[in-house]
């Protein structure tokens, strides 16, 4: 047997697989967006299975609270760029494939260029804005997206935008959810997530990528799989054969004004800034740095608390929820100056 194939002999032996499928994997170019709870296991299995070119896109750095579910990182990696650490680890795991870190934050300005070189996009992101951006960019360029999302004990998996035999494209994320108010849906740092769910859903995404590339099995096209790690029950929801959504342009990425800890402290000392905590009551009870307090999903109901002419610095644990709050204020109260504390309380 060719030494290259020895590594893959136990999958080449599968019925309907063979050396042809292995060759297809070798030629494939897959972009994993988000090297977090879903991206880590997905990328691990794409690398082990021999996908020839894997891009890993993440602008974030490793933090200690990621480690419970982001299994490619060690505490010693804290502070390093996730995309770079992930590529380094995966290159050791499989020296014969090409790994490309992408460390730019994906925006409406660069998304088309970033995905251009890839055949398949894996959506392992942790926010709605990037999910919609990837979805819309994939629809505009005719590429499939392997979607995964998790919260607490429940996950979703699906494959979007696959060209079907009748020439139409299969449903995409906007067929499921035309739009979402991101301030109303808690993310993992609020509601928590069980690490093994991330592993299961991430592996399922890699599984669908392999099926897509090798054209084997029944791919999750026109349906979405819901999985519950508490009961181990899963449920398949049919969505229909073709998309009913028209996507003609990318939604522009809103730039969020941020401010670092040092500048914020100076502003507080000179009474030119006011703090707004958007974490949960529970988080507030444990520790706070002062200022007003509304949980993120209550900001919209309290817009009259924000006065034109004043400058507010929103904060949370990581800068993610405060970013959503700033986006909301920029949109609803353009006369009020609002910043998000960069890096959240982690940087305080």
């Amino acid at each position, binding site marked *: 047997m060719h030494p290259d194939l020895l590594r893959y002999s136990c999958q080449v032996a599968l019925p309907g697989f063979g050396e042809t499928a292995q060759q297809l994997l070798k030629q494939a170019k897959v972009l994993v967006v988000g090297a977090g709870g879903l991206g880590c296991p997905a990328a691990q299995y794409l690398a082990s299975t021999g996908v020839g070119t894997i891009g890993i896109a993440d602008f974030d750095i490793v933090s200690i609270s990621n480690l419970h579910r982001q299994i490619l990182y060690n505490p010693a990696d804290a502070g390093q760029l996730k995309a770079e650490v992930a590529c380094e680890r995966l290159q050791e795991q499989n020296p014969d494939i090409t790994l490309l870190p992408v460390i730019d934050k994906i925006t409406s300005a660069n998304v088309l260029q970033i995905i251009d070189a890839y055949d398949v996009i894996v959506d392992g992101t942790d926010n709605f804005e990037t999910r919609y951006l990837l979805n819309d960019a994939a629809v505009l360029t005719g590429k499939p997206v392997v979607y995964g999302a998790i919260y607490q004990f*429940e996950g979703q998996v699906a494959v979007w935008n696959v060209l079907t035999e009748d020439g139409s494209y299969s449903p995409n994320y906007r067929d499921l*959810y035309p739009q979402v108010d991101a301030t109303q849906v808690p993310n993992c740092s609020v509601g928590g997530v069980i690490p093994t769910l*991330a592993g299961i859903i991430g592996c399922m995404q890699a599984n669908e990528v392999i099926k897509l590339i090798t054209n084997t099995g029944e791919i999750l096209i026109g349906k979405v799989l819901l999985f519950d790690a508490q009961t181990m029950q899963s449920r398949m929801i049919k969505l229909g054969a073709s998309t009913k959504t028209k996507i003609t342009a990318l939604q522009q990425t809103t730039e969020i004004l941020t401010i670092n800890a040092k500048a914020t402290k100076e502003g507080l000392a000179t009474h030119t800034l006011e703090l707004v905590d958007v974490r949960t009551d529970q988080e507030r009870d444990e520790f706070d740095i002062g200022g007003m307090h509304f949980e993120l999903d209550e900001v919209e109901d309290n817009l009259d608390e924000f006065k034109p002419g004043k400058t507010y610095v929103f904060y949370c644990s990581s800068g993610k929820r405060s970013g959503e709050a700033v986006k909301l204020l920029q949109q609803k109260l353009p006369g009020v100056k609002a910043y998000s504390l960069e890096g959240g309380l982690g940087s305080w």
Partner: protein
Amino acid sequence: MEINILAFGIAKDIFGVSSISVEVSEQGNIATLKALLEERYPKLKQLASYMVAVNNEYAEDKLIITERDEVAIIPPVSGG
């Protein structure tokens, strides 16, 4: 008629339980049901969108609900 509704994800938190029962008029459709739920649970409307599945199939607004249908409310999920 009485319709049983299963809640997924954040809908469990919004309803406070994992399944609820609502009274829907005969010939009521998904739009009727959504309006009724959103009135009772304003947080649901604030999500901007959520999926309603009837018998494990995505349900359009105009679909008529019958008593034996299994209805599920599946809100968006952001985590990764």
